[in-house]
């Protein structure tokens, strides 16, 4: 009986330690996560257009005429990569009823792309942040990055897939009503 009581006591003690640390660090962790997400997004869109509340809807965030998408590519060389992309959408649909928008607007075009998480080989596969930071602008003349073909192909496929998703997402009824 004494044994079980001491076991129970130790578990309660550790549970208390865990829950108090959790409660104490929770607000700070929440703030850190939001700040990190905002920091990632300010690479993509002008900070003043960023809504105060980031209301992600199944991987995308409509910001005025722009659309920010979060996409996970499963086939990077070192594992999945998380991408943040901004697309310029044709403004024609913003004042139109939704049923007409699909047919009248051209497909969105890629404005910016940021790789927010990846496990690609440092120095070789992470060209998108180190050796060729503006690889996206060079894209028309660069087929793939030598030594990192898998990474480059994965990024290209992800953009293509995101474009399809972006075309399918209808405009919000009034996309610019953020403060």
């Amino acid at each position, binding site marked *: 009986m004494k*044994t079980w009581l*001491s*076991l129970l*006591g*130790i*578990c309660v003690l*550790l549970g208390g*330690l*865990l829950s108090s*640390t*959790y409660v104490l*660090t929770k607000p*700070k*962790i929440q703030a*850190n*996560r939001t*700040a*990190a997400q905002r920091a990632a997004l300010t690479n993509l869109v002008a900070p003043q257009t960023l809504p105060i509340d980031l209301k992600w809807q199944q991987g995308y965030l409509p910001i005025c005429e722009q659309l920010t998408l979060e996409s996970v590519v499963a086939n990077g060389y070192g594992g999945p990569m998380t991408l943040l992309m901004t697309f310029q959408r044709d403004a024609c649909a913003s004042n139109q009823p939704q049923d007409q928008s699909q047919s009248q607007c051209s497909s969105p075009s890629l404005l910016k792309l940021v790789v927010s998480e990846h496990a690609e*080989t*440092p*120095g*070789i596969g992470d060209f998108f942040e180190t050796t060729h930071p503006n690889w996206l602008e060079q894209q028309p003349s660069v087929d793939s990055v030598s030594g990192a073909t898998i990474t480059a192909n994965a990024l290209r496929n992800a953009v293509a897939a995101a474009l399809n998703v972006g075309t399918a997402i209808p405009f919000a009824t009034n996309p610019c009503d953020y403060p």
Partner: protein
Amino acid sequence: MTSINLRQQAMSGITRANPAWVKLLGLCPLLAVSNSLANALGLALASTLVLVGSNVTVAALRTFIPGFARLPLFMLIIASFTTCAVLLLEAYAFGLYAKIALFVQIIVTNCMILARVEQFASQQAIHWALLDALATALGFALALIGLGLVRELLATGSIGGGLASLFGPVAASWHLQLLPHGAQFPIAALPPGAFIVAGLLLGIGTAVQQRLSTKHNPKGSVDEPG
């Protein structure tokens, strides 16, 4: 055991029984995280917290821990402190957390900690357990920081990059470029480089130790490691 013996045993974690270089424990996080000084320091701090926390807790509770359930209880204690370390790191060093979180989480499986708890803390008073934890943590930190310094220097030609993610914006100026641009060996930051550099450092350490012990003891008998 006399207290001098106990002190020697506790302090041996820094050099003679260094968990990483002599006993070769905890090599997975050691090799994975030591690609820069900042990462190495982060893991060293987290390991210190877990080691000290679990060693002291086990020593304090040693009379209440029933022998048949001691291993699950030790794991429970270590896991609790690891979770706390992860939460604290995420709250106070988010940039570093994003880089090394996985390896902080697997501190729980680091046999170095279970070994100290089982061999030492479960049988000794709190202050000896604390000393032992600090010495072991310092030994592990020295191994991590040594490897981190060498690998970062070889791979980027500089040391101290990214320290700002641990110490805040003040540390941004602690980044020292030591080698000229173009004199880098990126392989040192990659997993194969970890093994090569660790092997070389281990070899140098063993050679120094052998030379020292032959000097002390001319017949040439070498201390059995760990």
